């Protein structure tokens, strides 16, 4: 989490002027606003905040924590790692926790009949968590979630009468109200009336986990590299004053003013991006995604920006999306895109030799390719004036006689790093 001295000083100034007003929640937001300027780092900030304040605050806000937990148990638990969860439970006075929970449930007049696992978990969470494999733990969480959801549904029916004609309220069609894949669980919190999150609870939600990026090559860096891909030409409306030419013409006109306008410079560069979305690219998914977003965000800078996907190697069809559903004939691509498109291929170029050299070598059983991949690669190379291949695989693995090696004989190949990208762009200009 990069914090500069200036930012730190401003933060100290803010504290001195008592903007945090001795309130942890205000302190949390103040510190974040002044020190953390990118959403990617919000999660690191949450972590640091928890690390510092966890032990201090939980006993104080105990009652509030329980209420919050009752209203939305998984909002907190969902976002914790098993270790963090363990620590939370260690720090809490669990006997009291359970007592309050049971009392509260009794108050809501809900018959408490949780599943065996839930009961066990409530009695001794530490023991249970330790015994489970991650897969089992996940399974338990699902089970518990269902159970809890049912309790909430009933509670809500009794309490708020929000159901209109007994309509479904939570979890329509079996979709989880907590969102999938750690998404922000908003659905169920409709039930809660009190929303006084303490700072620690806000931090504990870890909403920003998905925004995290511990990757070196960030989008901005890629954009700056891609922006060098320029082909400036004067086109469009004449809206810029050509001073040189105006002076010239005016002189020739014996001092009678003659104004000359010209169109401003515009980038004429056209880019065609082909990306490997095959299984072997999975480890590089984030990186490739980043290149794509960088280019995509820049699409206004280029005259034209088009992208297509392929699976391991390029054959007679290219795909319009990563699901490989809509496709376009490679021949069609060669026909519709002029030779002055800059071709950028991103892929690991790693495949079985047959996939590159054999007829019908495509890994896709149902997509028999009458022409070997290497022929298609050569056709592409031949068609486009400028082309490069960006490879996320480190150059030390580019062995002689590997498919990487053969493909690098066709396309100028560069390692997908900042330097490699810079080199590749130079090749394209």
């Amino acid at each position: 989490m990069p914090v500069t001295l200036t930012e730190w000083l401003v933060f100290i100034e803010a504290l001195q002027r008592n903007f945090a007003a001795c309130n942890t929640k205000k302190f949390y937001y103040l510190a974040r606003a002044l020190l953390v300027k990118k959403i990617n780092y919000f999660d690191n900030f949450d972590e640091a905040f928890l690390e510092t304040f966890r032990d201090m605050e939980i006993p104080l806000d105990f009652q509030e924590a329980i209420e919050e937990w009752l209203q939305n148990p998984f909002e907190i638990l969902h976002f914790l790692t098993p270790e963090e969860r363990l620590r939370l439970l260690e720090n809490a006075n669990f006997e009291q926790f359970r007592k309050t929970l049971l009392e509260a449930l009794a108050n809501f007049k809900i018959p408490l009949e949780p599943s065996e696992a839930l009961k066990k978990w409530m009695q001794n969470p530490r023991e249970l968590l330790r015994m489970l494999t991650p897969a089992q733990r996940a399974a338990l969480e699902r089970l518990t979630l269902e159970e809890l959801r049912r309790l909430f549904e009933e509670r809500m029916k009794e309490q708020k009468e929000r159901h209109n004609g007994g309509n479904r309220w939570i979890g329509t069609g079996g979709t989880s109200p907590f969102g999938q894949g750690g998404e922000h669980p908003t659905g169920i919190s409709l039930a809660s009336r009190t929303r006084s999150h303490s700072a620690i609870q806000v931090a504990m939600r870890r909403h920003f986990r998905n925004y995290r990026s511990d990757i070196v090559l960030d989008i901005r860096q890629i954009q700056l590299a891609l922006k060098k891909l320029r082909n400036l030409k004067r086109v469009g409306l004449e809206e810029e004053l050509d001073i040189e030419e105006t002076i010239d013409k005016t002189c020739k006109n014996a001092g009678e003013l003659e104004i000359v306008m010209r169109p401003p410079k515009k980038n004429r560069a056209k880019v065609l991006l082909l990306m490997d979305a095959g299984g072997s690219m999975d480890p590089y998914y984030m990186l490739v995604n980043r290149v794509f977003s960088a280019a995509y965000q820049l699409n206004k800078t280029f005259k034209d920006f088009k992208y297509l996907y392929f699976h391991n190697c390029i054959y007679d069809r290219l795909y319009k999306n990563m699901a490989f559903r809509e496709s376009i004939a490679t021949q069609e691509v060669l026909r519709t895109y002029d030779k002055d498109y800059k071709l950028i291929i991103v892929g690991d170029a790693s495949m079985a030799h047959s996939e590159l050299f054999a007829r019908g070598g495509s890994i896709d059983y149902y997509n028999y390719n009458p022409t070997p991949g290497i022929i298609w690669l050569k056709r592409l190379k031949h068609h486009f004036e400028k082309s490069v291949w960006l490879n996320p695989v480190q150059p030390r693995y580019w062995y002689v006689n590997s498919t990487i090696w053969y493909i690098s004989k066709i396309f100028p190949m560069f390692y997908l790093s900042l330097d490699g990208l810079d080199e590749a762009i130079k090749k394209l200009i």
Partner: protein
Amino acid sequence: MRVVPEKFEVYNGTDDYIVSPELKDIVNVAIALERPLLIRGEPGTGKTLLAHSIAKGLGKRLIVWNIKSTTKAKDGLYVYDTVQRLYDSRFGDKDVSNIKNYIRLGKLGEAFTSETQVVLLIDEIDKADIEFPNDLLNELDEMSFYIYETGETIKAKHRPIVVITSNAEKELPDAFLRRCIFHYIEFPDPELMERIVYVHHPNVRKELVWQCLEKFYELRKVEYLRKKPSTSELIDWIGVLIKAGITEKELADGIPFLGTLIKKEQDYELLTKEKGYSDERSYY
């Protein structure tokens, strides 16, 4: 020793804009520290409206600088109208000797020269070229700029309250970020959303709102949507439902006027064909 919070003009939100307590605090900190406030968040989280609300709440004039992809930093400072001057020189009916007559101030210049403190909204800064924010660093730091043609320095009489919004379309440069106070507006939770709905439709029945919110958050969870419905679409949709006199019963199974919520055709097809949503009213 107890530190007493000092006094400065305090923004407290306005009737027509619901502000979360933490955002309100951050706004006040930004005003007190005299630093630009950078607001990010999904579309429909009320980034732009915040500036309007600050201006209204503090009773100050709002100057809006809408950024487009072609906007240059200099456009915000001043424009020197060379062509007009050249033309005028031919007829001699205007005083072309004074170059000042041909300097037109941009939005930033306007904010600096205002006799009273203003709120300056730089809207959607990420729309411009990626170098754009860097070109404004000095001007926003010093709150002054230099006009080369006249040798004049324009210095802010009162430092404007600067609010900058960004859709996170492009990454902003670090040097720029360092100078800002940053807040990310999270998408409103259902409870806050309910309050927002009542600001726009004060007389709508509670039951209808709850049901709409349920459908709305359900739709936002559908995977592969190209554009999730946002606050403004929800407000419009509820408006349409009220006008059409839709009852809770009719809303039970289908989503009438789905097109108000879902703007992309592919999304609409995905929902109606694959996910089994219906835009028909249901009758019982």
